[in-house]
């Protein structure tokens, strides 16, 4: 083959190849870059050929990993060259060096458009290729209609049209809102009649993207897809050049079957029959052949056919045929096929009830768990995890534990998490569950996250029968010579709580337990020291009559840690020391922890919190994957194959309102009438395990009713009255279903953050995730069905206020069991207003019609962008805005008293950037922000608050901006925030996830915040 055709380029490449080391290479590259730079400086003297040569050289240098930013401009400018050779280089190098986010690309939009609508076919191809590879939003906005025209043009060669199809695909994937595909169903149906296989292949990819978004618009394409499949797979009616090792374009077959998976069913019996004939042929007619490529290609088709069969819920016979095939595949030696066999079996579990047949292959699957190839092991692990139920849990978990000792680090965390979940979900008895978790900690302590040991403590606390067993086990592990710190934590905790149950066994006297735990103290970290101190206090309390020697020993330890530099340890030491001298009272105060309220397993959330990023929503996911990903509560429903529901194992029960009341009463009975402790009484148990477990010992916080607050138990402020009356009219509150959590608080929390739970009841959880940019908002509503039966007649109607343009995408009528659907909602802010958008949401569950009206957090502050400005900028602006209506002042009374610093935090959380020190008076506050709406240019807003240190319930507020409405609305908006400050506005200031395990005494606000924090829940949900 000839050299590049550009001598200078070839010479340069040879030079680079001859470099002995990286340093020489860098030297040579630097020299070349210097040369290119100088040559481009004197651009006029460059011939087109030279320009082209240098730009290619730059691309080569870029591939070597060097920075060639300076040359971006040169590459982009070549796009507008009049002749093909330069233009080609410009287009290709630009698509390699730049990505859609580069500003330079904008410079080329006009040229690109001219090339696309021009008559030169070659230029059209170049332009379509670049836009298809790196085109961003602006390209979509200005080019999509032109590209659409080319795709359906009858005068264009297939060459141009196939590029147009894929170019359009990119623009559509990236900006479905910009590319108008209304009425495209007919066009797509027409395109599917195309005889040119290149155009057909490209169009099929486009169709997949379109149907994955709106399958119902493309019904007319369904029979055509089946025809194509028949043509390829059955009639083999296809030009020779499109067969690959004798197989009619396997890629087109695969894509076509992919498209078919997005249609929920095939109703027309003839179409269905034709399709099944083809599928049957593929299933039966695919043999293993010697030629690798042929084999791969035919199996690519086969696996896609399997996926389609599963999707279509074929007759039992065909399904068992599929399982049989997969069973064969997972036993073959060929690694790719085995891998795919495992992967597809896992998928099959998600869609159909074939668990029993798959279980027969358990031994084979376990062999793959020991395969040298990590890719195969991962698939085997996934499959074992998916197929586990109560009948095989013991075997599978044993295998996982065994494998844990030899598994590479990359897999250990996942492995231990999965083992822990399976043990929890399918434990035939609870002592086994405890065994498994302790073994896990013992074998792979570093990979056992806190969630895992928190969970075991929770189970032990809630199940009295289990307590002596767990304590005995914990005691056993402590005898081992070197144990993991997590084991120290869990053993100490359990022995502190339940060690006294072992009292009569050898080696288990309080003193002995204390001694063996205390041995570990010098080697553990501070967080564990805190737990040990709690354990000591518990031991003291349980030792009745008191053992003076032990008492002195422990008191000495408390005394020693009273001066610890760790606040947490110090506080515990001081408190326990004081408490433990109270004698009899100690018994009450340090009594056993009450049962934990039922909560979803953090582990399951975590395991299913996998981020899946695919160009199209996966068909399986659309249908079923979400069923498993939205495991919202721990009460796992019985699976068809006879798995016992968790509640039957009496691990924990779903708290009904009444059981809550019981707990409440029990809690109150035990609560001492002790002035110093009354504070804690109102502290509800936190949903955050960490603070539960690591918090102070058993100071009986009764499970407060605010765990499930009723919507009406409210702050009583004027705004909440509006909430309960206007938004949820009392008459309509006849809903039999009660919301979980406080709707108003959820709304307020969402006003200052961008994701969280908007609404929840026993059947559904509505989450929200928002992105705000200038005056645009992109929200996604996540509707998660928590039940094992579908929710029907689902409806969401947006009632937008006049100042917002809102478009909610289609909300499906039915949400399948345990599934979550996503409904994007686009918001455009037209002008300033405090009005709030409402969504009227309803669904039917059984015979219950549930209807709620929810405020959407598309509030004024979302269209604000904080901006910090200097004194030099502030004061002239402030002065130039004189008096009403641009500058308004008001004395506000009845303000919730807040220290200035907290008020500043509040302001910042509403995107009003406080500039400290701008106002010399420390009692005053100055803030600035920019407001965005469609009708105004970005508007600077300035705010000044003058507080009265003598009376914090009043202040003077001055708001100024260049727009009278904005000034007024913003002033009113701020006033609302100051007058009624919802408690949950705090989370953004103190990150709730890192809430230190401090006792609630120190941080009374942190617990309710964590409790209400939907962000954490949603994070797991997304």
């Amino acid at each position, binding site marked *: 083959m000839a*050299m590049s055709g550009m001598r200078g380029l070839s010479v340069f490449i040879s030079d680079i190849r001859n470099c002995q080391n990286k340093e020489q290479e860098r030297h040579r590259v630097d020299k070349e870059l210097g040369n290119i730079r100088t040559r481009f400086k004197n651009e006029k003297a460059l011939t087109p050929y030279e320009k082209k040569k240098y730009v290619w050289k730059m691309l080569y240098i870029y591939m070597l*990993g060097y920075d060639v930013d300076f040359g971006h401009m040169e590459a982009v400018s070549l796009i507008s060259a009049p002749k093909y050779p330069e233009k080609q280089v410009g287009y*290709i190098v630009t698509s*390699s060096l730049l990505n859609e986010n580069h500003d330079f690309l904008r410079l080329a939009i006009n040229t690109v458009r001219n090339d696309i609508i021009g008559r030169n076919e070659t230029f059209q191809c170049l332009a379509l290729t670049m836009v298809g590879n790196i085109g961003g939003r602006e390209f979509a906005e200005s080019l999509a209609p032109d590209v659409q025209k080319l795709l359906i043009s009858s005068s264009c060669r297939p060459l141009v049209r196939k*590029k147009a199809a894929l170019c359009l695909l990119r623009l559509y994937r990236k900006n479905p809102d910009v590319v108008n595909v209304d009425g495209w169903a007919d066009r797509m149906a027409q395109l599917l009649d195309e005889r040119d296989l*290149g155009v057909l292949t490209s169009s099929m*990819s486009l169709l997949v993207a379109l149907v994955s978004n709106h399958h119902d618009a493309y019904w007319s394409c369904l029979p055509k897809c089946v025809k194509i499949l028949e043509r390829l797979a059955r009639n083999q009616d296809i030009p020779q050049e499109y067969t*690959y090792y004798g197989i009619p*374009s396997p890629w087109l077959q695969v894509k076509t079957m992919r498209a078919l998976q997005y249609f929920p069913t095939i109703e027309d019996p003839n179409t269905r029959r034709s399709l099944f004939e083809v599928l049957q042929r593929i299933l039966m007619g695919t043999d293993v052949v010697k030629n690798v490529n042929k084999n791969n290609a035919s199996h690519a088709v086969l696996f896609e056919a399997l996926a389609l069969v599963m999707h279509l819920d074929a007759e039992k016979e065909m399904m068992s045929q599929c399982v049989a095939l997969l069973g064969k595949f997972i036993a073959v030696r060929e690694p790719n096929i085995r891998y795919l066999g495992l992967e597809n079996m896992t998928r099959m579990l998600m869609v159909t009830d074939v668990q029993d047949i798959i279980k027969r292959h358990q031994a084979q699957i376990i062999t793959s768990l020991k395969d040298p190839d990590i*890719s195969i092991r991962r698939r085997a692990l996934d499959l074992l995890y998916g197929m586990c139920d109560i009948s095989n849990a013991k075997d599978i978990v044993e295998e996982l534990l065994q494998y844990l000792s030899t598994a590479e680090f990359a897999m250990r965390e996942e492995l231990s998490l999965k083992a822990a979940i399976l043990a929890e979900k399918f434990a035939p008895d609870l002592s086994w569950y405890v065994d498994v978790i302790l073994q896990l900690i013992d074998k792979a302590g570093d990979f056992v996250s806190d969630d895992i040991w928190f969970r075991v403590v929770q189970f032990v606390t809630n199940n009295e029968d289990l307590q002596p067993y767990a304590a005995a086990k914990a005691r056993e592990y402590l005898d081992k010579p070197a144990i993991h710190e997590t084991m120290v934590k869990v053993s100490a905790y359990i022995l502190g709580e339940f060690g006294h149950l072992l009292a009569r066994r050898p080696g288990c006297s309080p003193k002995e337990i204390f001694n063996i735990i205390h041995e570990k103290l010098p080697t553990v970290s501070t967080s564990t020291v805190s737990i040990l101190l709690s354990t000591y206090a518990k031991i003291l309390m349980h030792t009745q009559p008191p053992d003076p020697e032990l008492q002195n020993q422990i008191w000495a330890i408390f005394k020693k840690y009273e001066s610890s530099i760790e606040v947490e340890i110090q506080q515990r030491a001081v408190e326990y020391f004081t408490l433990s001298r109270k004698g009899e009272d100690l018994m009450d105060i340090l009594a056993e922890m009450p049962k934990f309220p039922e909560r979803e397993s953090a582990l399951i959330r975590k395991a299913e919190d996998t981020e899946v990023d695919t160009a199209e929503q996966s068909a399986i996911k659309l249908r079923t994957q979400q069923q498993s990903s939205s495991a919202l509560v721990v009460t796992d429903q019985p699976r068809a194959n006879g798995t016992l529901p968790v509640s039957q194992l009496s691990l924990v029960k779903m708290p009904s309102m009444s059981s809550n009341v019981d707990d409440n009463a029990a809690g109150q009975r035990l609560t001492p009438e002790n002035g110093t402790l009354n504070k804690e009484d109102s502290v509800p148990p936190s949903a955050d395990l960490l603070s539960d477990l690591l918090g102070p010992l058993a100071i009986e916080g009764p499970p407060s009713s605010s765990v499930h607050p009723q919507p009406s138990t409210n702050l009583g402020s004027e705004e909440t009255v509006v909430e309960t009356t206007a938004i949820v009219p009392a008459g309509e509150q006849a809903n039999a279903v009660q919301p979980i959590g406080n709707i108003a608080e959820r709304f307020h929390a969402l006003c200052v953050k961008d994701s969280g739970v908007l609404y929840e009841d026993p059947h559904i959880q509505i989450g929200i995730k928002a992105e705000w940019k200038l005056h645009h908002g992109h929200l996604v509503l996540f509707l998660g069905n928590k039940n094992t039966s579908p929710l029907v007649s689902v409806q969401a109607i947006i009632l937008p206020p006049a100042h917002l343009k809102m478009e909610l995408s289609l909300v499906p009528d039915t949400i399948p069991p345990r599934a979550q659907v996503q409904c994007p909602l686009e918001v455009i802010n037209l002008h300033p207003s405090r009005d709030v958008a409402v969504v009227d949401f309803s669904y039917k569950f059984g015979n219950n019609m549930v209807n709620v009206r929810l405020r959407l957090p598309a509030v004024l502050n979302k269209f604000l962008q904080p901006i910090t400005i200097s004194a030099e900028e502030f004061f002239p602006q402030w002065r130039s805005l004189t008096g009403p209506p641009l500058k308004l002042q008001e004395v506000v009374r009845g303000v919730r008293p807040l220290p200035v610093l907290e008020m500043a935090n509040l302001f910042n959380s509403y995107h009003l950037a406080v500039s400290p020190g701008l106002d010399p008076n420390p009692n005053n506050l100055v803030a600035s922000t920019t407001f965005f709406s469609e009708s105004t240019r970005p508007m600077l807003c300035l705010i000044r608050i003058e507080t009265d240190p003598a009376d914090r319930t009043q202040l003077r507020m001055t708001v100024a901006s260049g727009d009278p409405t904005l000034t007024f609305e913003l002033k009113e908006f701020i006033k609302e925030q100051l007058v009624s400050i919802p408690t949950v506005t705090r989370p953004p200031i103190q990150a709730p996830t890192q809430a230190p395990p401090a006792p609630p005494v120190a941080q009374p606000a942190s617990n309710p915040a964590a409790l209400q924090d939907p962000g954490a829940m949603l994070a797991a949900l997304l």
Partner: protein
Amino acid sequence: MIRFILLQNRQGKTRLAKYYVPLEDSEKHKVEYEVHRLVVNRDPKYTNFVEFRTHKVIYRRYAGLFFSLCVDITDNELAYLECIHLFVEILDHFFSNVCELDLVFNFHKVYLILDEFILAGELQETSKRAIIERMGELEKLE
């Protein structure tokens, strides 16, 4: 869809890199480094698929060259695996008995061929003949 295509030799030198998703340069370097590390030491008896972050790399080795496609985890692995082979056949045809050196000195041609084969991360044309003919047309224009 294909997120990116990498052609790397055993030492990890990039011979071709095509990204269909927007990545910053620093991120591209990282990706190239990681993918190379991921595939280079895998036993030939292993699968041609390996998890990479939230995606999947489908790779195949030809002499000292690794062809890697990063695709969605839901994509059809074997179809992409054979897509690599088809690409190699096209290169082989175009360069008549392709070797690494051809690809080094004619890297710009490889980009051209690739653009006729894959666009927007999807297959555009699967006929070897159509692509080779198209390349002939383009060469005449230069």
